[in-house]
């Protein structure tokens, strides 16, 4: 559409923009933020225990693992790809770090104890490797990421199953225990880690050359290739970044929950995708960012936490979450359309 000769009268040097058209073009960023304010206000009025310092701390802690995983996923979705293996990779990495740690004698797992730092490095190497397999399948063989990561979801779950064989492990290296369940000056370490990773992701996307490439590849992959960018390298990189973020989230999550077992992270797949998309990052690539993901995380966090405070039927919670996600998807697609019209 935008390429026809209908775009501008060449004489106009400035684009006159009304408030309305500004709001329209910023809808992707404004709508999630308004949702967050609305939900917070609603729960604050509905429940006296919601708007307390303690509870804000709860919410932050509750969204931390999702937040760590969502950092990498934001890169992937910005490239107009998807990663369905995040939760499985988080799970297998958490299990792997426990597998390489000496467990109590009553834990019946044939594990291979290593020094803490080695266990962590091995676990990180494992998630990076699985991410690399995703990357190669996507770029070298040409399997769509939706299918490739679906297969990886099973592969990672399979590796998890083989490592724990239906058992539960409890011990992880001390560093992971501290970061996952310790706190400093009253602030949980896991919140600090999540904040640092989100900030890091934001800095990379906004201020580095690689970040620009991610946006450009997402915005128009063909044009990126015609500009002489190594599109495959960039796509491969975001798949590895996503897997490593998931792995870190998985290790800290295991420490946070106090155990490593199968299917522990299953809900994190939907939560992470929801956080990125609810925040307003475009499913078509090229628009959005970590700022959006942070807002999306809070929308989900406030919603999950708030529903507990207002004493609602716990089975209804699932339905409400689904409806909120649907609303976000509608806004996401609609914002894309508005933007295309404005740019026409």
């Amino acid at each position, binding site marked *: 559409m935008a390429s026809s000769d209908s775009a501008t009268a*060449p004489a106009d*040097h400035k684009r006159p923009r009304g408030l309305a058209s500004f709001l329209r073009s910023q809808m992707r960023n404004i709508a999630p933020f308004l949702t967050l304010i609305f939900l917070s206000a609603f729960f604050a009025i509905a429940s006296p225990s919601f708007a307390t310092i303690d509870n804000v701390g709860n919410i932050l802690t509750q969204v931390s693992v999702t937040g760590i995983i969502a950092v990498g996923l934001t890169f992937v979705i910005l490239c107009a790809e998807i990663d369905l293996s995040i939760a499985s990779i988080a799970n297998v990495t958490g299990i792997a770090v426990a597998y390489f740690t000496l467990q109590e004698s009553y834990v019946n797992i044939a594990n291979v104890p290593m020094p803490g730092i080695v266990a962590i490095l091995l676990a990180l190497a494992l998630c990076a490797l699985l991410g690399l397999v995703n990357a190669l399948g996507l770029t070298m063989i040409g399997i769509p990421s939706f299918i490739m990561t679906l297969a990886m979801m099973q592969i990672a779950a399979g590796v998890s199953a083989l490592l724990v064989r239906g058992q539960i492990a409890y011990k992880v290296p001390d560093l992971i225990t501290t970061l996952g369940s310790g706190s400093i000056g009253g602030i949980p370490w896991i919140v600090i880690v999540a904040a640092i990773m989100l900030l890091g992701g934001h800095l990379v996307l906004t*201020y580095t*050359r690689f970040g620009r490439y991610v946006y450009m590849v997402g915005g128009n992959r063909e044009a990126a290739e015609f500009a002489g960018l190594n599109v495959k390298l960039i796509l491969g990189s975001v798949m590895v970044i996503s897997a490593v973020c998931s792995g870190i989230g998985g290790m800290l999550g295991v420490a946070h929950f106090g155990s490593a077992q199968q299917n522990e992270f299953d809900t994190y797949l939907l939560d992470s995708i929801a956080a990125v998309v609810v925040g307003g990052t475009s499913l078509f690539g090229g628009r959005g960012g970590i700022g959006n993901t942070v807002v999306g995380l809070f929308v989900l966090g406030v919603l999950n936490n708030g529903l507990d405070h207002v004493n609602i039927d716990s089975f209804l919670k699932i339905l409400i979450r689904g409806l909120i996600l649907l609303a976000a998807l509608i806004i996401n697609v609609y914002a894309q359309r508005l933007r295309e019209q404005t740019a026409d």
Partner: protein
Amino acid sequence: MSQGRSAILELNQITKAFGGVEALRGVDFALHAGEIHGLVGENGAGKSTLMKIIAGVHPEFSGRFMLDGKETRFRSTRDAHAAGIGMVHQELSVAPDLTVAENVFLGNQPTNRLGFVQWRRMAREAGEQLARFGIDVDPMTRLGDLPIGLQQLIEIARVLFSGARIIILDEPTSALSPPEVERLFTTLHKLRDEGTSIVFISHFIEDILRVSDVVTVFRNGRKIAETASADTTKGALIEAMIGRGGEALEHSYTDDLMLPESGGGSAVLKVDQLSLGRTLQDVSFEARAGEVLGIYGFMGCGQLELSRILFGKLRPDGGTLAVDGAAKTFRSTAAARRAGVALVPESRRAMLFHQEPVYKNISISILDRISALLLKPVRERAIAQRQVEQLQIRPPVVGLDLGMLSGGNQQKVALAKWLTYPPRLLVLCEPTRGMDVGAKNDVINIVRDLRAKGLAIIVLSTEPETVLSLADRILVLKRGAVVREFAGEAVSKDRLLEAA
């Protein structure tokens, strides 16, 4: 001719703005039954916008829209279609994975009472329709397997035979060879005589004068003139289009043109025995520093594939490629770029980021030169500003989203991204396609500047004028093989067409 008859379509005071920029300002337009109405104007003059309003693509506009004397508003292309209006858009919109027959009947396949598609009937009728149009293809072949020109003809045929009583053709001849254009014109005249109304948009003014009864000229979102085709000339139309002395700007290239005796210096690119499936056979040539090599051929002759191979997007089946004497096998476009090759493809959609600002479009190919890890937006904007000024891109605002620029200016942006650090070899596909006269001249001057700086330049085009206006040496490509080289001799449009 239409005088005296009442208009079937009448538009009054149509105004349409995109994001605050007015694309049409109070335009009146009337179309009569059994008339071919030509539209001319520079890029961004508003022709396509007006036609998209008629075809229901842009439902929001101000002004009065009368169809058959009744005020009407289309809310979608469906409404327009139901009212008997069909449009062939500037850019090919076919389903390459479907068969020819399915494409001809797209959206209204013949079905039996149970709703199943009647394949045999569809294939037979599609074959008959295309035969009427002089196209002889098996209706059950996959459309994507046919040459682009043929695909365009089939798309046109679909609209022509859809039973529409108002047909809008936006640049329909850009991908067609002269005999195909001939066939199209014959069909258009036949349809007109049967009472169909046709709007014909083209940059080829000779075509407009030949095929249409009435011509309307647009400039800057306004209607400038409307005259009977018989009462005007090419020069007069060009002058009305650009609002200055047009004659000197448009060279017709019907006379012989002398190519320089010996062009250029050392060979920058050497291509030997390049082949690719059925598309390219044993293509060998060299491109020299300080010389523009033109490669001319009809659509589907293998030019596009050749350009993709030079830029590492396609891998040849056989043959070798050397840049500055070193043999190269490009594994990616990034590798080609590092070796000093640059490509500007023929489609603006494929080479630009419409939702990103101009400066990001310009800096994308040189980011690794201006920043190691961190971006340097100030430097990026400064570089872009310089290019925008040098290439006279309008409006000269580097922060504006690219989609807000007109087509010709977008084309300049695509060129600009390669100019800050000039490559060794610049490959341009259809560098002036769909451009108005003024923008064409700008591009010609830019290419000449680059030649003077010692770049090797290859221009690939299906328009003889483009090659003739730019090239120092010309190769003619026919069905994937080089059939003729013009060097240091006289050449003209006729001679090129003859060779191809």
